[in-house]
């Protein structure tokens, strides 16, 4: 039930993001100073911001940025985590010791603050934000992938592949990694909410997407000045962030329970 709810919200957000130009009532950057800081009403369902831009439209376009970051982070981190974990799990001995030690060190470091420092060093922007989040996010996947490949290491079909003359690299890439993928994906859906929150935090601090890009975290930051009299400017994007990360949390929790009946 919760999985379905989470999944439908995520799918809905993805559809909104894809069809943003068709669904958004206004352009994301269409300013109208005469209509600035309008309360939510019939013309602007969620009100307007300090430049008279329609908040609903900006939220819809902002879904593109947030989901884009989530997708990019997954595309970057999953292969790194998979590779590190599967290589460690398959080869064992000192390779495993070294790789898992590195993973543990990364795992024990504070994620958000390191990501902040990375972006500050690389310079603000979405690409750098994605890089920074990816650098601090891969270790859990490496752990999951290693645990999974440990059980595969001595499987008969792996022995068969080895006897057939497959190289270690080929076995890891073609035989082990694909089988570790499902558990890594479940683990990832659990992490997506965290990624959204870090991305929003970076945007809030001005380190993520740069203006005038409609990014939820940055929208909260710009609404901060007006929050005492015009609460909706900052409130709406926060609600969007909360709903989307809640959806990912529900989805991830549900998937985990589904795969691991002990947790139920």
């Amino acid at each position, binding site marked *: 039930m919760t999985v379905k709810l989470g999944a439908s919200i995520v799918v809905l957000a993805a559809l909104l993001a894809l069809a943003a130009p068709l669904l958004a009532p206004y352009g994301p950057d269409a300013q109208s100073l005469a209509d600035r800081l309008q309360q939510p009403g019939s013309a602007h369902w969620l009100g307007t911001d300090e430049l008279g831009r329609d908040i609903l439209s900006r939220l819809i376009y902002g879904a593109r940025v947030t989901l884009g970051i989530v997708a990019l982070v997954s595309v970057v981190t999953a292969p790194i985590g998979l590779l590190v974990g599967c290589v460690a799990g398959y080869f064992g001995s000192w390779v495993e010791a070294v790789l898992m030690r590195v993973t543990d060190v990364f795992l024990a470091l*504070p994620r958000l603050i390191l990501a902040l420092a990375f972006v500050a060093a690389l310079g603000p922007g979405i690409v750098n934000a994605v890089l920074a989040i990816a650098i601090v996010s891969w270790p859990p996947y490496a752990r999951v992938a290693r645990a999974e490949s440990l059980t595969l290491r001595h499987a008969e079909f792996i022995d068969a592949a080895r006897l057939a003359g497959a190289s270690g690299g080929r076995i890891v890439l073609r035989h082990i990694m694909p089988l570790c993928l499902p558990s890594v994906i479940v683990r990832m859906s659990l992490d997506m909410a965290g990624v959204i929150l870090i991305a929003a935090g970076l945007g809030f601090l001005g380190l993520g997407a740069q203006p005038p890009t409609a990014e939820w975290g940055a929208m909260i930051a710009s609404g901060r000045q007006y929050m005492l009299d015009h609460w909706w400017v900052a409130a709406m994007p926060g609600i969007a962030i909360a709903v989307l990360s809640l959806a990912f949390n529900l989805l991830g929790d549900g998937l985990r329970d589904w795969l691991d009946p002990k947790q139920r």
Partner: protein
Amino acid sequence: MKAASRTARIIASAALTLLGLLLATFLIARVVPIDPVIAILGDRASASSYEQTRKELGLDRPLYVQFARYVASAARGDFGRSALTKNPVAQDIGRFFPATIELATGATLLGVLFGVPAGIYAAARRGRLTDQLTRALGLFGYSVPVFWLGMMALVLFYADLGWAAGPGRIDAALEDFVPRVTGFIVIDAALAGDGDALRSALSHLALPALVLGYFSFAYISRMTRSFMLQELGQEYIVAARAKGLSERRVLWVHAFRNLRLPLITVIALAYAGLLEGSVLTETVFSWPGIGQYITNSLLSIDMNAVLGGTLVIGAMFIAVNLIADLLYRVLDPRAR
């Protein structure tokens, strides 16, 4: 003997993590697209003075030598000078640190105070309203951005209802009357015996600590619930109930005894998480802690300050986890 070597192993692993943290900040400093020599001399410097400064900074040496020097100076507490405040970063951090600790401690206390009982009762009434409510509250805590919740709390409880004091640590009018002894303003005000200052400080602390504490509530109640569910399935609980003990006694005496150990780790992790979470919260509440120091330095690319703050928070993070690991070993008879 065996226990001693295990303890040594825990400490060695924390030391290794610390070294990893130092390596991370060292590498971050290297990727900054600003030439440190030009940052000092300006881009009109002659080639010879450029070379000289480069040598003085040790930038002509191999990377591992530079890293060793970096570790040595960090160990001495030397993080360089802040470009923004012109002070040594260590001095700045010393000034801002107590505020962060004060906030994180207050928040963790709240999180434990509410989170542990909530988790226990949620487990005891599994599937019923208390449980559903606790889980929903927890899940929401995992999903909302902390800085946003802080802003909304300010709008509602400070601006609209006037229940709590606004941004800052104490009313500006009272600020100069509290002598700085420990740097923890609540304690300093209490030491000075200044009732007004103490009330003001507590009222300023309340809102940010509640907001931040909510996040540790979310984590602590969730973990407590899942530990408690495990315990409640054990036979000794059935035995205790069969003896006719009151439910309260079963929960709080028999089961809770076995929760204390895992809870130590959970609370430590929550505390470490809040140290980090303070970075975003302090900005919203104009709380003069390390988090605000870091965010202010971020935008002016004052990397010494950013990395110094990152190192200190990261080191605290590692230290809190180390302490929890060691406590666990001391308190768990099986680990001795």
